[in-house]
């Protein structure tokens, strides 16, 4: 058989063996048996030197071409088998649950507070803060609360013991008893005492009322207070801001209505009702959501602002109430039980 006639069959059988190698070991064996130092193909190449001179060019070309093909086939099969070897024995079940890194959750009251703060900050408000343990002056007197107003009763307000031993809290007390603030409005006074107008603040914080805990009451709850004092502030401004904030909070289709009401520290005073898909889901067209009004001139006088120069408005609402309406929560106590099944829902 001539040299040239041997090349093609050997190449074919080598290719077949390489391609058929079931794994990398078999592939290596096949490589050695053909291309190794003592391999069949290597042996054939060694014969090349013994051919007559005139046959060499054609034979050399044929065998080198075959070698390139074999090496290409070897490399291809090797990467194929390497890939196969890298795969796990059993295919991965991508429907199995993964190994989770769990992110913690912000308390729903924090989330609602942050939303409120964000909406106010968009329109130039900053956040302010004050003590939770207050005195009667800042919580009541300065806010124009009548001396005998029932809100001051020990029935409704928590007073601290030992701050005035044995005494009932008294309204005209020169050394007023310490109490837990019943509203964030006390911070209005604290801020205005320290700062000249204009004032533009919101005050989120804890407040306290002496109510037994039930589905709608908890002795501790949260409020947000807004206060704006400037020249030429009007009821129209109050309405515009309230509408802006509640649309931000409760959705663009929210409608707002003002009803005249009474609070000692604002005049005129209003209650704010809102109406949205949420209220309609609760079976109500209007739902009371906040109280507000123009800051009473007496309050300005109490903090040393001239009511002839400055006007302003304030409003306040309960954060729990917003959260309850927004998320459909039916029991305020859930906020303070810290049940993780509850907390993780928000």
């Amino acid at each position, binding site marked *: 058989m001539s040299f040239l006639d041997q090349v093609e069959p050997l190449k074919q059988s080598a290719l077949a063996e390489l391609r058929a190698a079931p794994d990398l070991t078999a592939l290596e064996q096949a490589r050695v048996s053909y291309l190794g130092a003592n391999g069949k193909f290597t042996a054939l190449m060694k014969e090349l030197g013994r051919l007559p001179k005139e046959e060499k060019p054609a034979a050399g070309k044929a065998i080198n071409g075959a070698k390139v093909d074999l090496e290409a086939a070897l490399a291809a099969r090797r990467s194929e088998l390497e890939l196969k070897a890298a795969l796990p024995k059993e295919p991965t079940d991508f429907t199995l649950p993964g*190994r*989770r890194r769990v*992110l*913690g*959750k*912000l*308390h729903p009251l*924090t989330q609602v507070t*942050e939303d409120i703060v964000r909406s106010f900050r968009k329109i*130039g*408000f900053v*956040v*302010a*803060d004050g*003590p939770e*343990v207050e005195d009667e002056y800042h919580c009541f007197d300065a806010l124009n609360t009548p001396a*005998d107003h029932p809100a001051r009763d*020990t029935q409704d307000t*928590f007073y*601290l*013991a*030992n*701050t005035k*031993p044995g005494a009932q809290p008294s309204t005209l007390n020169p*050394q007023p008893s310490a109490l*837990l603030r019943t509203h964030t409005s006390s911070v209005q006074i604290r*801020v205005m005492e320290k*700062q000249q107008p204009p*004032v*533009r603040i919101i005050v989120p914080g804890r407040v*306290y009322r*002496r109510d*037994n805990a039930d589905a709608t009451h*908890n*002795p501790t709850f949260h409020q947000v207070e807004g206060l*704006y004092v400037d020249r*030429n502030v009007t*009821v*129209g*401004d109050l*309405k*515009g801001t*309230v509408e802006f904030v509640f649309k931000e909070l409760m959705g663009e289709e929210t409608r707002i*209505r*003002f*009803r*005249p009401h*009474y609070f000692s520290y604002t*005049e*005129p005073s209003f*209650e704010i009702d809102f109406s949205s898909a949420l209220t309609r889901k609760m079976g109500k067209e209007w739902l009371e959501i906040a109280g507000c009004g*123009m800051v009473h*001139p007496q309050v300005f006088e109490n903090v040393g602002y001239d009511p002839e120069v400055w*006007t302003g408005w304030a409003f306040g609402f309960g954060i729990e109430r917003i959260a309850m309406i927004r998320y459909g929560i039916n029991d305020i106590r859930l*906020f303070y*039980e*810290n*049940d*993780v099944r509850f*907390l993780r829902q928000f």
Partner: protein
Amino acid sequence: MKVTYNWLKQYVAFGWSPAELAERLTMLGIEVEGVQKLGGEFEGVVVAQVITKDKHPNADKLSLCRVNDGKAERQIVCGAHNFKAGDKVPLILPGASLPAKPGEAPFTIKVGKIRGVESQGMMCSPQELSLGNLVEGLLILREDARVGQPFADYLGRSGSDVVYDLEITPNRPDLNSVIGIAREISAVTGNPLKRPQIELQESGAPAADLVSVRLEDPELCPRYTARVIRGVKIAPSPDWLSSTLEKVGVRSISNVVDVTNYVMLETGQPLHAFDYHLLQGSTCPAIVVRHAGEGEKFKTLDGQERALTSQMLLIADETKAVALAGVMGGQNSEIGANTVDVLIESACFKPQNIRATSKKLELRTESSYRFERGADIGICDWASRRAAQLILQTAGGALAPAAVDAYPKPFEPKQIALRHAQTDAVLGIAVPVEQQVQFLERLGLEVAQAAAGAGPAGGKARQTTVFRVPSFRVDLKREIDLIEEVARLYGVDRIPATPPRGAIGANAYDAVHDQLAEARRILTGLGLTEAQGQTLISDAAGRLAGATGLVPLANPLSNDMNVLRPSLLPGLLDALRHNISRKSYDVALFELGRVFRAAEASGPGGSGSGSPAVGEQRCVAIALTGQRNPLFWSGDDREARFDTYDLKGLLEEFLEQFGLRGMTYVRRPESTALFLESATVHLGRFQLGEFGQLLPPLARQYDLRDAVLLAELNLDLLLARRNTSKSFRPLPAFPAIRRDIAMILPEATTHEAILQAVRQARPANLETVELFDVFRGKNVPAGQKSVAYAFTYRQAERTLTDAEVNAAHEKLVVQLQQRLGAVVRE
């Protein structure tokens, strides 16, 4: 306060439906808390007259009629035969419903085709109207029935009415009366307020001869009027009176008592009627308004004997008390079936005194409710005359001329100036001067001095009107109060909202708020969920935190909530218990919140008030229990529980991310009231907080089964000490060389001590030291541990050689052997 639709209509005309009235009152600031419909039978049924009666084109047994309903003609298909053209019949209009039989839905009449012909309503039989008497066919009405009249009126059963339950804000005592509410409606509509006309026939001896009145404390009782009616006949009230009272929830008793209640509801002025003959005096019966004696006993109308204090005010005669002033009458002088002569009291009492009495005795009445909110001193006599009028009407008798009116300091109306431009400035709208004045006049204010300064140069900017405030408006004190009235009547819904505008706020806390939010963000990123605990906890729980300076409440609701929390940890323990009791065993919580401690006395030379100041401090606390990792289905440590180093790692990461570096941790030698084992966290000379494992007996007490890890840090301190400055350090350009050391050390040698020794050895070019293994057991003697550290060496400017690293490292090994007594394992 309850009023009815029909009652209001007696005092003012308005064209609103009952639903519209509720809406209008609400928008005036009188919140309608409840609406109850009474009666309302035969709504949509009117008297109609048959004009023509023809055969139905498509049905033999039906007729086709033209009927006049008083407003228009209607075409009605009818199946009855007992009527003729000209008859008057009840016609139910489309949209109205026939009375429902019990348990059935009402049948609503619609316009519809019957056998191809439209029928616009239905003529009714007695059965269909549930009128009972069986007649074949339609109910034929009397000839004098007025066409178009509501059928209920025809029957004389127009008892339908609507009762409104109103929430009256405490500043408006004048609205605790039907006339007060009517006045508001009158002000809005402009329709006049129709107060009843009172013309009294008087006869016999004047009241002054029949009774004397003495006020011992005119401050507590600034006015007392007494009228006497002789020869009344006590009897049940007429229907109009008893039914009016019953509609608003007041029980009818007898004509005279009912009149006093009626007039109170009508005018807001509480009245009391005494049996004149049960009052004593020297020449004639006397009324003495005096303080009670301390401990004086008095039996009120409700049969209760009450012990009084000297603060309380009594109505007495010369020998005995006869009424608890402004609160409740006495049994000894009450109107009875045999009462013949009646004394009517119409007085005014100081609100604070009535409130104190009512509260002390826990006795609240319609009368005390009105007096404590502030009654109208100006209306005493009018209300008394109104009562006399109605008593004469309903119980007969003769009214003694005039009244005894003890009124030492007659009411002086307050005057308030309203600058009309100020109204516009506050409301943000322009309300014409005339309209402002008109609104206020309709509310009963009088112009004392008309708008001045209206000249050509003046304009509204300078116009001021001075108003006299009527006695019933105790809430109107200054200009802004008048502006509010204008706003209410103008309608706050008509004030356009203006977009937010104005100054940019400034407050130091604003930045703190963001820092708190950042702390929360980091902690949630670490897998902790935020909790919010109660501020009020039990003193026992408070003491767990080892707290001195607990702040107790003077008036706690219960012993579970009698102190302010001195720490967030008791609240977090409650949260853990709550979760574990609900089978959520794996809980990782944090809370940011305030804690409260009584500060030490304010130091030498302090105010000495004796009131310890209460310190408020922000804290951040963490609680971990249960499994470290979420449920997973493979892996050796998948059931691992949280341990102290989980907590430590959280703290380290949190503190570092929050901008705090260089903390040290000092183990407490002993267990505490809260911790089995714990450490305090320090930064320089500040103690930031503590953390550790909860004492197991306490864990059991809280029903917690796995180890519980707790930490609490002073957040105010963290905020003060944090360093948030950030600056770029070039990335290393040259490679590092790592050398490891494993060594055996006594158990007592802490990681901190090892680091200390390394720092003291100052190896050249050392970049980091990292602990990567701690091992006890095989080949490690008892009481010792094997620790392995990786040391990384690097030079910023060049590549280190093995030789120089080896030299430095070998020196370090020697130092560690010497300083720590370490046995270095090769």
